[in-house]
């Protein structure tokens, strides 16, 4: 009997790996969708079933994922606004159109950069923390303890985080808008010699409510996706502390990847 060709074995192995990876990805998407459905069920039906989603838990999560992220989101968005102004003026100077920089900066900040930077920061802070928390609780039987006490882990652990992210990430993105535009404005007014009040008028003329809502809508989507990716990864923990580290890393990487891909699709659809 002829020996199997090593080349074809390698191809078969690679195809098998791709298939397995694809299967795992579809499984994770399915789990995320089910989780979102269950969380929505508890938000709507919790009170009727005398198991409400606790407001205090939602507020605690809002403080944790929202208020705690204000400094870093502010610093990063201010810097991004400043950089956009720098690059914008430098590029437009070649055409003698540097006076138009505000238009470009205002649109790119509100539609793109503020929600994206905020989403990535929240994925790194809160998505990882959520994955680590759920992972640790899973391996120490705390999730099982909830189940046997008749407490739905989705209602008790997942829903408050999801609701908090859906509310706080757009709020942070709005803050990011303001801070980034402030950063850009300070540079533009100094470089082009226009007053901050004139800059403010230019921003108001450039940005419509629809631009703002596009950015904030994306931010809400990023928040929801970050929470779901964190929980799905945390619930899949295997092993001990090493497993928790692994799911935490994979939650951050997947959240950022999902945020950027979703951003691309969202931008493509909304600009058609």
């Amino acid at each position, binding site marked *: 009997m002829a020996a199997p060709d090593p080349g074809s074995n390698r191809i078969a192995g690679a195809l098998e790996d791709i298939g397995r990876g694809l299967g795992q990805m579809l499984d994770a998407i399915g789990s995320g969708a089910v989780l979102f459905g269950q969380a929505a069920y508890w938000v709507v039906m919790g009170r009727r079933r005398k198991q409400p989603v606790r407001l205090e838990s939602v507020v605690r999560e809002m403080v944790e994922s929202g208020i705690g992220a204000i400094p870093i989101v502010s610093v990063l968005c201010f810097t991004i606004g400043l950089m956009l102004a720098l690059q914008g003026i430098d590029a437009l100077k070649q055409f003698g159109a540097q006076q138009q920089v505000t238009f470009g900066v205002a649109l790119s900040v509100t539609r793109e950069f503020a929600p994206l930077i905020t989403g990535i920061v929240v994925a790194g802070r809160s998505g990882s923390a959520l994955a680590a928390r759920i992972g*640790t609780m899973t391996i120490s039987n705390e999730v099982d303890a909830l189940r046997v006490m*008749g407490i739905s882990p989705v209602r008790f652990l997942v829903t408050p985080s999801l609701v908090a992210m859906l509310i706080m990430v757009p709020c942070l993105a709005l803050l990011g808008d303001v801070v980034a535009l402030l950063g850009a404005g300070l540079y533009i007014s100094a470089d082009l010699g226009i007053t901050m009040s004139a800059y403010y008028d230019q921003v108001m003329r450039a940005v419509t409510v629809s631009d703002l809502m596009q950015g904030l809508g994306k931010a809400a989507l990023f928040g929801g996706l970050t929470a779901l990716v964190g929980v799905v990864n945390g619930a899949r923990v295997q092993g001990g502390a090493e497993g928790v580290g692994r799911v935490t890393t994979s939650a951050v990487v997947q959240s950022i990847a999902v945020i950027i891909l979703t951003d691309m699709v969202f931008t493509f659809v909304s600009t058609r």
Partner: protein
Amino acid sequence: MSAVETQEARSEGENVIEVRDLVTHYGDRMILKGVDVDVRRGEIMVVMGGSGSGKSTFLRHVIGLERATSGSIRVLGREISEMNDVETTEFSRKLGVAFQGGALFSSMTVGENVMLPLREHTELDRLTMEIMMRMKLEVVSLAGFEDLMPAELSGGMIKRAAFARAIVTDPQVLFCDEPSAGLDPVVAAALDELILRLRDAMQMTIVVVTHELDSAFRIADRITVLDQGHILITGTVDEVKNCDDERVQDLLNRRFEEEELNADAYLRRLTGGGPL
């Protein structure tokens, strides 16, 4: 009622748990291979066996954390396998479970941990819940520790706090996973006393999973011995002690069962199955 009469009442009592022909798998590996167990109202049933015998798997299936491959599990007259997730969640409130590692929530104080089932399932005011919490902590000799975090407790205290949380809603059935494991003999004996007190004072039906022989003989009304997914015997402490089955006696006399290997098989194992 005298102790003998109480014992007789238990032996004639209705079955609170009925497990029939339970078969379970983890992946391709069969863990429980057709297990039948009855637990009567008000008794302490100890499920005993060595490591890997399937006793923890048995417990996880009876409390509804895992789905069986086949067989029937009836608890308080309800078939566990026929319940959906929502029904299982509702039903779980009638049960109390004390996990091996305690499974206390590390972000909550001991008191908040114990009060959690009350907070989630009742509409009691805060003061009443706190009184009930302190009463249960008193039962497990942890009065005054309600403001500590779980990380500040010793192993025995964590287990006792887990007991307090498990009994705070006065469940009809209490499950305990390895209550004495890893504890010094004095603390282990105190936990045994606590289990006996819960049965006698609160008429609870208690299922204890353990591999600690001393503890099992001290607290059990009846013992089920599991080995490699099969039940070797179910009976009273005396019946188990006097059982002729060699594997039961191996377990009771702590005899390690050595696998007989010939020289070639031993060498193959050392080389990881590769060529000799």
